């Protein structure tokens, strides 16, 4: 009887998943067919006529990847206060984007970030350095996304993880190659709706369950619903210290490292090409500012809910398993154990689960990534909610992958082929080149998804660090410092990237020594994740010093700078 009931339950989740994923995929594909790109302008910047709301939603979906959707709340639930580096780091960058970059880049009115760097610094060297950075950053990112797609498919549709990656590749290929930026933008609008709904529904359910408050943002600061009169956070602090972990609301990273990581992530966010390029798609300069605000508002919905989910999940998990007999664990525990993402070894053979900070006595290892995925099951939510989380995770991973693939294909077809190797290429030829590059990029991304290099996680730090160390200073100086010249900008970018690479290779991969050097050897006590902040400062300093000793940029370029500072007359993004 019991087994039958469980079987029916399992089939239902499965069927719900097929139904929800099927419906959402059908929507994405229909949008792609409806919004095919017919010119390079439509392919690169969606024709330049996207409304601020549509662009805001697309930016939000583009930005929130599988890492934000699946990973972040899990990371926070294990890091406590320290999780703030991601929360502030991945949102605060939008203030920099709105105030320092987006309006001016929109006024400048070209297609890509290397376009701006190459024109503003009147140099193909600068352009090629920018292309290399853009490709490096985007490939790093996209490999992680394809892996995310594979994991969600394999977990919920019970296909092989590689089959999952290939299905994901085919879907992205279809709408990115056909629709270009135009197709991607309107699919992302749909994907935002799917992913935010999928994230909020379980969060609201659990918030009501635990605290009686339907708003998760307030719920995790409320009293528990069990009538004990204890605040949820106080209870979690107590549970954490009892088990030997750091107090949840205090964290364990050093102050300088928290500061540096937050800064590196903020500046890196503002320097990421797939984010910046979204602001080329709106009609006017004022729309660029407004859509940055809308994008952050929509992102903030998820980012302020995630810390609440983290607290709910962490408390629930500790309460359900800590010091409980292993034979009595709930069904979800066994199910995730079979995937290897939860492991239990009864070190002292007492049949109880000891979950403590001390490694030698701890018997339970829980993968951080399952917190969001398993949360609805832990809280016994209805089957359709569990299935919804799968559809949401796929929407998050696919939308980000598509945005990145577009940056890769336009870097190749526009920045390299059109601007450097073959300026005489026809519009039609460039469009074909763009589509072929997109196909190539999907294949390479898929390859990395199927054979993930074991340093993927480490390279994400590198992606933000590189963006912070290269693009951000070069673009900001290009707008706000009229005298900045190509010598300064190129020297700054090259030195910034070099020092960033050196630090990651030395302290993250440990390739320069036999082992990864100890934390005590970090410069200024800053981790590789936070080093982008230092590399950015180095870039600024080198740029300004070199600029002082070299000649001012030509007056034509200074006129460009004066022109981009005035918002009116942005016209349409152009190829000339």
């Amino acid at each position, binding site marked *: 009887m019991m087994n039958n009931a469980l079987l029916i339950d399992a089939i239902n989740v499965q069927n719900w998943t097929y139904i929800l994923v099927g419906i959402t995929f059908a929507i994405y594909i229909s949008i792609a067919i409806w919004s095919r790109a017919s010119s390079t302008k439509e392919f690169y910047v969606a024709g330049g006529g996207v409304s601020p709301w549509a662009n805001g939603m697309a930016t939000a979906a583009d930005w929130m990847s599988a890492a934000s959707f699946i990973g972040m709340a899990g990371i926070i639930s294990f890091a406590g*206060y320290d999780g*703030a580096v991601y929360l*502030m780091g991945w949102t605060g960058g939008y203030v920099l984007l709105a105030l320092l970059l987006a309006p001016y880049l929109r006024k400048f009115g070209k297609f890509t970030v290397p376009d701006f760097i190459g024109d503003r610094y009147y140099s193909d060297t600068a352009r090629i350095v920018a292309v290399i950075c853009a490709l490096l950053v985007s490939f790093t990112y996209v490999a992680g996304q394809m892996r995310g797609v594979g994991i969600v498919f394999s977990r919920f549709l019970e296909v092989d993880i590689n089959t999952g990656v290939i299905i994901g590749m085919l879907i992205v290929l279809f709408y990115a190659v056909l629709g270009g930026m135009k197709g991607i933008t309107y699919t992302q609008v749909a994907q935002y709706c799917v992913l935010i709904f999928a994230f909020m529904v379980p969060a609201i359910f659990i918030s009501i369950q635990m605290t009686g408050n339907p708003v998760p943002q307030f719920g995790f*600061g409320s009293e528990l619903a069990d009538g004990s009169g204890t605040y949820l956070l106080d209870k979690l602090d107590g549970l954490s210290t009892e088990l030997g972990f750091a107090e949840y*609301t*205090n964290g364990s990273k050093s102050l300088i490292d928290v500061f540096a990581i937050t800064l590196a992530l903020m500046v890196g966010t503002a320097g990421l090409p797939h984010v910046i390029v979204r602001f080329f798609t709106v009609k006017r300069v004022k729309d660029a*500012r407004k859509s940055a605000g809308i994008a*952050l508002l929509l992102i903030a919905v998820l980012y*302020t809910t995630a810390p609440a989910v983290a607290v709910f999940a962490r408390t629930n998990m500790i309460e359900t398993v800590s010091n409980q007999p292993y034979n009595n664990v709930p069904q979800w525990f066994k199910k995730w154990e079979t995937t290897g993402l939860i492991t239990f070894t009864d070190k002292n053979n007492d049949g109880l689960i000891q979950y403590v900070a001390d490694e030698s006595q701890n018997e339970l290892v829980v993968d951080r990534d399952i917190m969001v995925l398993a949360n609805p099951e832990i809280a016994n939510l209805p089957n359709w909610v569990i299935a919804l989380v799968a559809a949401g995770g796929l929407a998050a991973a696919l939308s980000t992958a598509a945005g990145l693939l577009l940056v890769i294909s336009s870097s190749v077809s526009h920045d390299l082929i059109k601007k450097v190797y073959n300026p005489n290429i026809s519009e039609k030829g460039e469009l074909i080149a763009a589509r072929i590059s997109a196909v190539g990029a999907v294949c390479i991304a898929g390859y990395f998804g199927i054979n993930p290099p074991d340093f993927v996680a480490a390279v994400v730090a590198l992606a933000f660090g590189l963006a912070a160390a290269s693009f951000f200073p070069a673009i900001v100086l290009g707008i706000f410092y009229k005298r900045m010249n190509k010598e300064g900008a190129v020297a700054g970018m090259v030195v910034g990237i070099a020092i960033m690479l050196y630090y990651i290779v030395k302290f993250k991969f440990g390739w320069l020594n036999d082992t990864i050097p100890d934390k005590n050897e970090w410069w200024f006590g800053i981790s590789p994740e936070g080093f982008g902040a230092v590399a950015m400062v180095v870039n600024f300093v080198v740029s300004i010093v070199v600029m002082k000793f070299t000649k001012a940029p030509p007056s034509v370029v200074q006129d460009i700078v004066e022109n981009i*500072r005035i918002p009116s007359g942005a016209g349409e993004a152009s190829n000339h």
Partner: protein
Amino acid sequence: MTSQEKAKAYWKENIRYVIILLVIWFLVSYGAGILFKDALNTIKIGGFKLGFWFAQQGAIYVFVILIFIYVRLMNKLDKKYGYDE
């Protein structure tokens, strides 16, 4: 005003807004959420310690508000100088 003087005056006001807003941006995140977190944590609002709340909630709300304030200020400024469209 010549068009060049106008552009200069517009730019100067813009920079002033940007600096003021970025100071607030810095204070809520790096200030309240990181540097002065421990001091603020002695204050509690509901179940939230204030420093923790700024780091995981408050700073993000302020970021959103800051951008919309900038949008409003700049739309007004664009009109004042006749750069709106």
